[in-house]
């Protein structure tokens, strides 16, 4: 009985964590541009001297 309550609490906490992550990602515009980030990661910096 006690352990089930513990597990329930844990599972809810995990789910809440995912909900928070979802809200955070929407807030930071992660769903607004699905092209640039996917391509940006493929560009290599040939000169490798630039630091942003």
């Amino acid at each position, binding site marked *: 009985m006690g352990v089930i309550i513990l597990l329930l609490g844990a599972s809810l906490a995990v*789910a809440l964590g995912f909900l928070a992550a979802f809200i955070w990602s929407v807030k930071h515009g992660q769903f607004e541009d699905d*092209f640039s980030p996917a391509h940006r990661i493929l560009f290599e910096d040939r000169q490798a001297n630039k630091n942003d």
Partner: protein
Amino acid sequence: MSDTMQTQLACFHCGQDCHGSPIVMAEKTFCCEGCKIVYEILHQHNLCEYYDLNAQPGVNQRMQVRKDKFAFLDDEKVQQHLIRYKDAEQAHVTFYLPQIHCSSCLWLLENLHKLNRGVLRVTVNFSKKEARVIYHPAQTSLREVAEALTSVGYEPYISLNDMQEKKPRIQRKLVYQLGVAGFCFGNIMLLSFPEYFSGSGHTDAAMNNMFRYMNLALSLPVFFYSAQAFYKSAWAGLKHGFLNIDVPIVLAILVTFIRSLTEVAAGQSGYFDSMTGIVFFMLIGRILQEKTYQGLSFDRDYTSYFPIAVSVIKDGKPVPTTLPDIKTNDTLLIHHQELIPADGIISRGEALIDYSFVTGEAAPVTKSVGEIVYAGGRQMGSNIEVLTIKEVAQSYLTSLWNRDELQKKDDRNVSFVHLLSQYFTWVVLLIAVVTAAVWAVKDPSRIWPSVTAILIIACPCALLLASSFTNGHILRILSRHKLYLRNAQSIENLANTTHIVFDKTGTLMGKSGTEVRYFGNTLSPAQEMMISSLAAQSTHPLSNAINNYCGNSSQHPVKDFKEYEGKGISGWIEDQYIRMGSAEFVGIPRSDEHDGSIVYVGFNGAPTGLFTVRNGYRPGIRSMLETIRNHYTLSVLSGDNTREAASLRILMGSSATLRFEQKPADKLDYIIQLQQQGEKVLMIGDGLNDAGALRQSDTGISVAESANNFTPASDGIIEAQQLIMLPAFIRLCKANRHIVIVSFLMSLAYNITGLYFAVQAMLSPLVAAILMPASSISIILLTWSMSEAYGKRLSDKGFQRMPDKNHV
């Protein structure tokens, strides 16, 4: 024509055909000087990876940008409006760059710092076609950043619209609500499992009780937060005395929640799982249906077309001035290709004004000193000076937007889904009353459980789900075929169309001159070749058209080539001196018997003949019109004169109404007149001259050569070459209604099953928990597969109907 000798050479930068006279540099060919310059700049700055990522990624540079075009960006006031954030270290500005189209663009723009050391960082938002530039204000200026972008082919589009505050376009709240509903729904389902199996005696009563309270707690955010959209819409409907579909849905949500509360208080389980599930699915449908196209805007008004600033001559010097600061009696300096922002009188220079944007009249008009020019015209050729007689906000063009009719498009059109839901609601209420009456006689204690169960099970959410999911799918299928509708209501309006009104120029006819004819002394092949050689030297669209007409064989070297802006071109080929251009320039009396843009030709000072360049009808338009004229009444409203009347009559059929010389207000009035006769009008047009009519009509669709071009406010945007698919599009929109009705009938089957339990007051949470997701998911699957099936037919149709090659 004999142009088979040469193979087609594609420009290394932009991929366009080099038209016989390529510029060769470093073993690479370029179609024009502009493309070559961009390559040189990129090469110098070690940015040639641009060409490695995609072949020929550039945008054609034939149209050169005027050197000090961005001088207005040095103006403090303009900067204030554009710069979002500024301190001593950095300034943030977001530019709209309509040229963005591939990963090369992304790469180049984000490496802008290699081109201009003052730029700190550039972040591209690809779907919005925006670049957010962070630069060091001490090392570079806003103007230099814009010029750096322009130098590599990404000229920022800065319009008067940028002066206004922008609203976020996406309804983020709806997404948050969906997230919360999904979270609560999932966990409630999980916590309800013991309840579902409680019949088999494996459960612990104390634990079950705790789960119920947890469910109750989890349902609160859904009831109070996620379902808000439905409450608002239902309340808005009721306030207008209209029972829309959200009213019975809100009733069902309320009843389910209250009944569940009382059950939990009495030690029973409640229907939290069903309630949250319904809200979750309906929110998905709503988001799907309200999908926005980020790169497109359906709400443009004149401010999106007007520049943010123009040069005003003060004490003999041009000073960049923002549009709202322009007063009457200011002298404006208007350059080649610039828009005249306010009505005025020409005080200096020879104006050649292209009003196609405002009136639809294709040929540019000549205006001399002392004549009035109206806002919205585009100056072609040399610089002119205009003395303003009205402020920008009071001009003829802008006053169009202030007409009362256009202020608000009211909700004249009510979706059939709402009407259907009304019948549905009355039937459900009737069943509830009858059930209550029956139980009142037999067993009064069962009235409450049976009546609430009926309201829970028979809420028209299935109908709402069916319609919102179908609408969402149809919008997606249409957008795959490059018709972008603004919202779900537009689908239905399009399906109900009875009368289709077309604009001529830019809609039925393409915008670029495609039909060239020659009149005069017969040209020998050698002469044709010379004309072609001369025309190839110029980047003017008319020269291009004539070059193509004369066989595109620019073999001869041209000596002493001169281009007189707004007048014509001249040059020596072998021993011949050739002039092409306006009548005065060539020295020929003007001819009034020809239409379209006229280019006169003279050899050695003697007139030879003239070319007419006219807009051609779009390919495939003829068969499209033949299909639809049997089903709809057609009209053509043209801002042009009657010279096309005969060929239009053949195209449109004998029953069509043709009206010419229509001013924007005439077009608007014609639409109103049709609507008063009870017609449902679909207006297809482009340009500002149609803006009023597009707004007024039941469905207004604007035609764009590319979806990212600027289009007036409308219910939809269609890409020009897809216009021939119009009949198929309308058919698909009609199918929308069939799909909704079929899905609705299916959900009725579920409802009747549920009602069977409900009227007996036997609706257990388990039955509700099975019926609800089962019906929702099967409706989603059904609408999806049916709309895909109809959509597939659309693609097949598209392939069958090849555009007919002959122009009319």
